[in-house]
């Protein structure tokens, strides 16, 4: 307690120093006078009396110094002194300060921006209680049927068996997405719902902010007409403050009672507006072979992931024996919820984090370089200070204080830059994440920024301060104007800086180059369709209203008929799910001529339902046979069209037309192949393997969810209102939302790659700029140092072009060494991003060569100005200048 009080007093002692000094002087003065008085009284003569009093008091200045030490806090005062001095020095060199601060701000800002994303997505716990125990459990499909697929959704019966047989989880909840038509509240609308088992909210340990969550009783068939809605849903459809508990809404023509409202922050997974019970019927509970649910679970305390995994392995094994038809080859994998949600963006984020670290290193090197160059001009000042008794540590501390000051100022500016960068990254990334996390500058990010700012300042200041204080005191003091003397040690240090900068820049450029080439190659990939001038219209009808197969087919046919009649529509068709979008399904097949094997061993192929006209609307080329026609009706002979890859895979030699294929999943008659069409990149442009696909006739296997594809002669978006009207003439309650062009869908599918390319290119551009500034700075400094030497050379008859080349050659030499080191490092490092590349290897020679050449040219340009300056040195001026 006393200690603390003393410290507070000492901190207080930092203020009002002048007054306190005056008081002490007065006190000592009165002390001496009293002592003299006493001495006089003892009979001394005045001179002796004063002398004795002063001797007894000891050195007055020393006393004052001791007193001051005790009064304040020495190191703190020194720090303040250094800071004040640093600020003064930096203010006297506004040019240097501005360049250094800005350089550091760019470097630190890039790090702050990327770190804030990493922090939100990979580091900060998910906003659920004890979120580390939240897991998702996926199926692992048999590799024979699904080569390369690591995880798969889960079937209801398997989920129920997992749930009843496991001992490692507290709860296990199944969830399935539902697209529902909301009617009876103005314009019909399509909403995203999540059907969940009753324990969904308790797995997450979360409750509705009003009303209640689900209980086991809600999860029974026939009782499931209750919903919990999101706050956003309530805001949108009801008043903000209205009590909506107990109100009913119409979803897919069925009434649901609102029993709960979630808090505004809860939207899990992203985009879900309401939650409803699964309420599986006994028939649905028995489904083992259709995998369309996700499973979330909470680990019991004391059970770790590995233990839970081994238990799930055992359960899967049992199920595979008990139900060989459906479960042979199907395993289970336990995966932390965070990895399930964000695992796909993780590698890209780590690459970006590495990239910004390099940018910061380059910025650091640059500032070290600038500081060193500038500090050498201060050698004399430092020498004098050392001669006056400043220790080496003290001088180093002064230089470090200056660089840390620079970097903290840079950090402050960086926060401003990062603020805008983070906003745009978050705006881009937000809708692409399965769970929207708050990406922003929180305390952790601020702390991170402060930490790297200080660290950066120290790193940038270490080399210059070390060099500066190592200099020979005598030599420094003897310096003349300091213009022609160079110090071999610091020259070497500067050259090393340049080499490092060039190498780092090259590394980043290679990374960016590979990503950009990937994007470029992907954009050049033939998607198998012609996405230009195509409008897509997703439609979902409720099977309560359209219960029979005929009604469903008729709805879509009627809509198509009206749409085709619209002016500007060239052709139109419907498909069960669009290429490049999620939601496509696969089914096991037996193609004619293939051995008949159990379902688990049968190859899975993509299956799409299409209407006549779809192929021509998408311009998928018909290679053999015919398209589907209106004549292919429900009751007529079942026919299909297969993709080229399908035909080549199963009938590499024979003619595919007339062959038969059996879709074994839902037992039915075999279908006859009537046409072969070109391959479409159904699963994304970056999937190299051609997709074996079957196009089944919509009329022969009706569905409630289809997407219309319209080929238009005018800009597709101009038709949106006409199409909406056409749909509403068929059914006024049918929501028409999310109408987009096929081009934007293709474009969206490259979003991740594009973000990577843009960010990496930005960072690489930064690195290139900083590298160029670094080379330029070092070369101009070198020229300034050598003005007299160059003057002598010219006076002795050296040609100006020789001088020019001399400087250029020197700069280029450093750049080339840097490039070589950078290339070697790139060979090792780019392998880490191989998973994000497409169509080229991580050591793509073209990229490497191009990047090296670009960097060499930039280095050349950076040397050009100093070289010209050297060439123009006037020998008379240079020699007289001493």
């Amino acid at each position: 307690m006393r200690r603390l009080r003393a410290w507070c007093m000492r901190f207080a002692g930092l203020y009002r120093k002048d007054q306190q000094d005056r008081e002490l002087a007065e006190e000592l003065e009165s002390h001496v006078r009293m002592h003299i008085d006493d001495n006089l009284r003892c009979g001394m003569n005045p001179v002796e009396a004063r002398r004795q009093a002063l001797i007894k008091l000891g050195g007055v200045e020393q006393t004052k110094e001791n007193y001051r030490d005790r009064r304040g806090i020495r190191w703190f005062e020194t720090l303040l002194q250094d800071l004040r001095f640093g600020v003064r020095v930096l203010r006297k060199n506004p040019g240097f300060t501005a360049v250094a601060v800005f350089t550091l701000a760019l470097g630190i800002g890039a790090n702050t921006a990327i770190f804030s994303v990493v922090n939100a997505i990979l580091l900060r716990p998910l906003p659920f209680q004890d979120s580390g125990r939240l897991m998702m459990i996926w199926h692992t499909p048999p590799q024979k049927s699904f080569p390369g697929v690591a995880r798969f959704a889960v079937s209801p019966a398997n989920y129920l068996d997992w749930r009843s047989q496991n001992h490692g989880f507290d709860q296990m909840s199944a969830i399935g997405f539902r697209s529902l038509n909301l009617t009876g509240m103005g314009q019909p609308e399509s909403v995203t719902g999540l059907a969940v088992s009753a324990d969904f909210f308790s797995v997450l340990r979360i409750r509705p902010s009003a009303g209640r969550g689900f209980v086991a009783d809600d999860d029974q068939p026939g009782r499931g007409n209750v919903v919990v809605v999101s706050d956003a849903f309530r805001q949108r459809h009801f008043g903000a403050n209205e009590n909506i508990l107990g109100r009913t809404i119409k979803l897919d023509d069925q009434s649901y009672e609102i029993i709960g409202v979630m808090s505004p922050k809860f939207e899990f997974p992203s985009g879900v507006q309401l939650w409803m019970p699964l309420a599986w019927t006994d028939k649905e509970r028995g489904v083992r072979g259709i995998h369309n649910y996700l499973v979330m679970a909470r680990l019991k305390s004391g059970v770790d992931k590995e233990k839970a995994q081994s238990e799930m392995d055992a359960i899967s094994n049992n199920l595979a024996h008990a139900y060989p038809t459906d479960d042979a080859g199907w395993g289970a994998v336990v995966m932390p919820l965070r990895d399930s949600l964000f695992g796909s963006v993780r590698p890209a984020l780590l690459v970006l984090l590495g990239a910004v670290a390099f940018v910061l290193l380059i910025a650091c090197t640059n500032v070290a370089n600038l500081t060193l160059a500038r500090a050498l001009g201060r050698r004399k000042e430092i020498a004098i200070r050392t001669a006056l008794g400043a220790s080496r540590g003290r001088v180093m501390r002064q230089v470090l204080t200056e660089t840390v000051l620079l970097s903290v100022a840079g950090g402050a500016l960086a926060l401003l830059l990062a603020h805008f960068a983070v906003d745009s990254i978050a705006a881009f990334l937000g809708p692409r994440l399965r769970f929207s996390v708050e990406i922003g500058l929180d305390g952790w990010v601020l702390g991170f920024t402060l930490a790297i700012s200080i660290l950066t300042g120290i790193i940038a200041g270490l080399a210059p301060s070390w060099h500066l204080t190592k200099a020979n005191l005598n030599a420094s003091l003897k310096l003349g104007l300091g213009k022609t003397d160079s110090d071999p040690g610091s020259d070497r240090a500067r050259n090393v800086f340049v080499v490092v900068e060039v190498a780092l820049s090259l590394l980043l450029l290679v990374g960016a180059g590979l990503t950009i080439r990937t994007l470029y190659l992907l954009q050049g990939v033939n998607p198998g369709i012609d996405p230009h001038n195509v409008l897509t219209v997703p439609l979902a009808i409720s099977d309560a209203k359209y219960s029979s197969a005929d009604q469903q087919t008729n709805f879509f046919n009627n809509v198509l008929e009206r749409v085709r009649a619209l002016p500007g529509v060239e052709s139109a068709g419907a498909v069960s799910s669009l290429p490049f979008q999620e939601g496509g399904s696969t089914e096991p097949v037996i193609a004619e001529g293939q051995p008949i094997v159990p379902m688990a061993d049968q190859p899975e192929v993509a299956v799409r339902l299409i209407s006549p006209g779809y192929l021509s609307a998408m311009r998928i080329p018909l290679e053999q046979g015919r398209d589907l026609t209106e004549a292919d009706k429900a009751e007529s002979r079942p026919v299909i069209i297969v993709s080229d890859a399908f035909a080549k895979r199963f009938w590499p030699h024979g003619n595919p037309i007339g062959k038969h294929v059996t879709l074994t999943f839902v037992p039915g008659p075999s279908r006859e192949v009537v046409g072969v069409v070109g391959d479409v990149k159904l699963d994304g442009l970056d999937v190299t393997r051609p997709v074996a696909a079957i196009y089944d006739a919509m009329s022969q296997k009706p569905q409630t969810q289809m997407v219309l594809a319209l080929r238009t002669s005018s800009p597709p978006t101009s038709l949106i209102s006409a199409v909406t009207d056409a749909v509403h003439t068929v059914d006024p309650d049918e929501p028409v939302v999310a109408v987009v062009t096929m081009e934007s869908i293709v474009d969206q599918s490259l979003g991740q790659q594009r973000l990577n390319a843009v960010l990496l290119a930005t960072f690489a551009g930064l690195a290139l700029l900083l590298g160029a500034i670094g080379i330029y700075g070092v070369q101009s400094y070198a020229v300034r140092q050598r003005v007299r030497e160059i003057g002598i050379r010219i006076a002795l008859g050296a040609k100006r072009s020789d001088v020019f080349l001399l400087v250029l050659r020197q700069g280029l030499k450093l750049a080339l060494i840097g490039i070589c080191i950078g290339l070697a490092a790139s060979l090792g490092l780019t392998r880490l991003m191989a998973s994000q590349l497409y169509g080229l290897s991580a050591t793509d020679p073209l990229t490497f060569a191009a990047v090296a050449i670009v960097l060499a040219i930039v280095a050349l340009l950076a040397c050009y100005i100093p070289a010209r300056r050297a060439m123009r040195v006037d020998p008379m001026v240079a020699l007289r200048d001493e």
Partner: protein
Amino acid sequence: MSEKPDVWQGTLSVMVLKTLQTMGPLHGYGIARRIEQTSGDLLSVNYGTLYPALLKLEQEGYIASEWGVSDNNRKAKYYKLTRAGRKQLEKETREWEQATTILARFLAPGEKSS
């Protein structure tokens, strides 16, 4: 000058507190003289070291100071004991008594171990 031992580390503050307790408010010069007198002129106080010690005690709250006028009409800074200072003095007195007793036992002649 005779060879007088300096005040050893850590004891100056007790002496200051004790002096203030017996003498009441006193200025720095007075404290220094009093300490020398009390020690029977065996100790020599470097008057300069006294002031940082006074500052320390003041920062710790054991003494307080204010400006006043001395007997012979000189302006001087007077120090006085605070309540906390009084307590501290009691505590330190106890500790010193204990320490000296123990030390005295060690140094007492005649008790030889076999």
